[in-house]
């Protein structure tokens, strides 16, 4: 009665990631073809060698045909998956299990989202017929509830917390400025972020993830076969997933300062990977910084900071590029935007680069030799979300 995990049974042997931006000149098909082509080249395998495919997309297409048609796959199983903002990670999780089961030798996980064809700013879920009583708040509005609750619980002056949140955005912008694949490549000072007008609670648009199109992909094989393809495979250490039951919305006990689903997924992942102190054992983490208060609270939910201490660790620079646990070294959702199906795989792509010492010099982390990296997604709202945590390593054991 526990998740046993598949530590060191499966490895990633190739990855690709498009630039994330407003791809007015690229369709969903184009983004899929570009990401898959780069990924196959990275792994050194041909398209037809891939036995099975998983496609993550929240609302850019339905069914496996969305991938099979543009790539002209020949009689291959392709499964389209969706799991809110963890959609890309979910595609990878399914591909890893398929290989671990022995059902396939080579599997691919592909994530894509074409967000910018809707004509509206932001992410907009397609409507499912309902009784019309659902709340109409934006995600920014829902996550903005976290900031005052956190400030109140830990006795922080809201103006001080405002600067802490801006520091998170500033750090991610600084990292993104060093990344050619990022949508936003401009450094932003804490002062300039604090000067922006609020749009939801105390949050300004600079506390929110950008909105971009993009695609990313990974090829997975059994760990025993990995060195046939590359001398630097990345091994799957843990795959954890929690779909919350929404009780946070109805339970007066929930105080909007933590995300139980993320904490539970983190604990499961650490158990699978055999990690006891994530703050010192991890080389880096890519977390779901959809809004600045989200990243703040995640530092505590994922065990990087003690409860009520994350804001101090942020201020001390612990999570900076050269801090003791670098967070969102590629620039995060803040710099990349959030093409839902692609984000989880984009995060893994950064771990792939960093753990293989292949990140550009200006953002290569000092801690890569710790050998372990974490990716995290959440989707939904405080009190009502899904969460994924994956842990990846550059060596067995």
């Amino acid at each position, binding site marked *: 009665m526990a998740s046993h995990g598949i530590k060191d049974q499966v490895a990633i042997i190739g990855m690709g990631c498009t630039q994330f931006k407003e791809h007015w000149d690229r369709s969903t098909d184009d983004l899929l073809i570009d990401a898959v082509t780069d990924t196959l080249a990275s792994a050194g395998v041909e398209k037809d060698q891939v036995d099975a495919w998983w496609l993550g997309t929240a609302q850019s297409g339905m069914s496996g045909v969305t991938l099979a048609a543009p790539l002209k796959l020949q009689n291959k199983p392709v499964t389209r998956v969706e799991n809110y903002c963890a959609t890309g990670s979910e595609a990878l999780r399914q591909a890893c299990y398929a290989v671990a089961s022995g059902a396939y030798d080579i599997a691919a996980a592909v994530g894509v989202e074409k967000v910018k064809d809707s004509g509206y700013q932001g992410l907009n879920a397609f409507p499912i017929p309902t*009784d019309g009583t659902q709340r109409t708040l934006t995600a920014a509005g829902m996550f903005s*509830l976290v900031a005052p609750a956190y400030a109140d619980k830990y006795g922080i002056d809201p103006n001080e917390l405002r600067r802490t949140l801006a520091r998170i955005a500033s750090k991610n912008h600084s990292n993104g400025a060093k990344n050619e694949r990022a949508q936003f490549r401009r450094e932003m000072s804490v002062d300039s972020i604090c000067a922006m007008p609020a749009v939801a609670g105390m949050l300004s648009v600079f506390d929110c993830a950008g909105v971009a199109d993009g695609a990313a992909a990974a090829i997975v094989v059994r760990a025993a076969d990995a060195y046939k393809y590359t001398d630097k495979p990345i091994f799957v250490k843990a795959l954890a997933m929690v779909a919350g039951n929404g009780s946070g919305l109805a339970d*007066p006990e929930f105080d909007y300062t933590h995300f139980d689903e993320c904490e539970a997924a983190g604990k499961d992942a650490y158990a699978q990977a055999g990690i006891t102190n994530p703050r010192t054992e991890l080389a880096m983490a890519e977390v779901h910084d959809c809004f600045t208060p989200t990243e703040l609270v995640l530092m505590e939910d994922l065990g990087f900071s003690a409860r009520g201490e994350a804001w101090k660790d942020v201020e001390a620079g612990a999570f900076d590029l050269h801090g003791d646990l670098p967070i969102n070294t590629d620039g995060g959702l803040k710099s990349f935007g959030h093409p839902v199906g692609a984000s989880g795989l984009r995060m893994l792509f950064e771990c792939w680069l960093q753990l293989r010492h292949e990140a550009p010099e200006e953002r290569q982390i000092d801690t890569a030799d710790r050998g372990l990296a974490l990716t995290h997604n959440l989707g939904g709202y405080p009190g009502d979300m899904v969460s994924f945590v994956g842990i990846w390593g550059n060596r067995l054991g």
Partner: protein
Amino acid sequence: MRGIISAAGYLPHWRLQREAITQVLGSSAGKGQRSVASYDEDSLTMAVDAGRRALGAVPSANPSALWFCTTSPTYAEKTNATIAHAALRLGSEVIAADAGSGLRGPAAALRSALHSTDPAVLVLTGDVRTGPAGSVDEKDGGDAGAAVLVGAASADSGVAVIAEYLGGASATREFLDRWRSPGEARTRSWEDRFGEQRYGDLAAQAWEAGLKDAGLQLDQLDKVALVGPRPRASAALAKKLGAAGVEVIDSLASSVGFTGAAHPLLMLTSLIEQSQPGQVIALLAMADGADVFFFRVTDQVSGDSGTAGGVTVADQLEDADNTLLYSKYLAWRGVLPVQPPNRPEPARMSAAAAERRLDWKYGFVGSKDHESGALHLPPARVSFEGGNIDDMEPAPMADVAATVATFTVDSLAYSPSPPVVFAVCDFAGGGRLPVELTDVRPADVTIGMTVEMTFRRLNTADEIANYFWKARPVRGHGTAREQLEKTEQD
């Protein structure tokens, strides 16, 4: 004894100063102010608010019929009253129907209820009075809801009558005074003097016949309410009443405006609220004819809060936001179309999904787990505490007060009137719902603020009006605050 069992008025929170109209349009809009329904209110929601108060005052009275009157209905073809029927959680055996679309509806429904043999009949009225900028309906109109529960006193059920019906009369004659095509904003009218004189004649005719029917002499009367779209039409009668020492009560023209189909019952409520036991009162309603009703106020009236739920019309006159901008008013009524946020408009609700969740959507009924007591909003089959399946009872929450646990102001979300003010609300005695606030300015929201639920129209898509509940601050009056204080004491 048959008469009025309870009566309640509902005035929306907002007031527009007529001076604000003058400043924009140049020509004088007169003095005083008018009441303004918020962007999420309509004739039905205001009628429901009044209906909740009227029914809440007499829990043991079970109406067997609901008649709804408005000149600003949400739907043609579809009956509007059934929405109020759902929001008030009346039984399926209770008939609910619209009593016509003209101004005379409320008088007809009241007469019908008073002449009925049903133990109790609920008459609901609500109206949003609008028109082109500078129109009479804009300047002199007002928005309101009103409800009266009519029926017989019954020792068995403990139902009493606060105003005994003594008699009345009607006078009808076709003439063209004011008219409006369905769906039009503008009401047109014939020369004022014509209507005033026709109404004057009809009022005099009904008045004399009514006195005779009730067996009353003029000097037996204490207070009278004169209601109609032509204030001058009853000037002669008012003069006669004044000479006889009969008080003609304030028509609310300067503080609320003429609230159309809501006005007769709003004025009847105000009349009863201002009266003492034993006093004889009369309502004269002029609308395409004239109808007069005489009552004797009984000793069941308890001072200034005897009609319903302790919230009087006078309370609501005081407790209002008097600073609404004319531009906001015009935008709310659609007279001044404004650019909506660049967000997808809401999808229409599913009729089938709404009907499955009728008690939740319209009645605000959650569920409560028997074993753990955990309250579920919306209702659930599986408890989030303990996990029991299908072991819940309905938990009606519409009349339960809540406190704001945390809140936010969202300028990005789609709303007919941005920004969205949104709060996580914890209900007294258990239960939580993150829900939109209304009738509040963002700067006035605080953590710990007490709120109560109100039935509102969230949006309209594909011509479907989507109703649900929001929370509004509990102000100086109301049962919610008393209830919360009581719960805290318990």
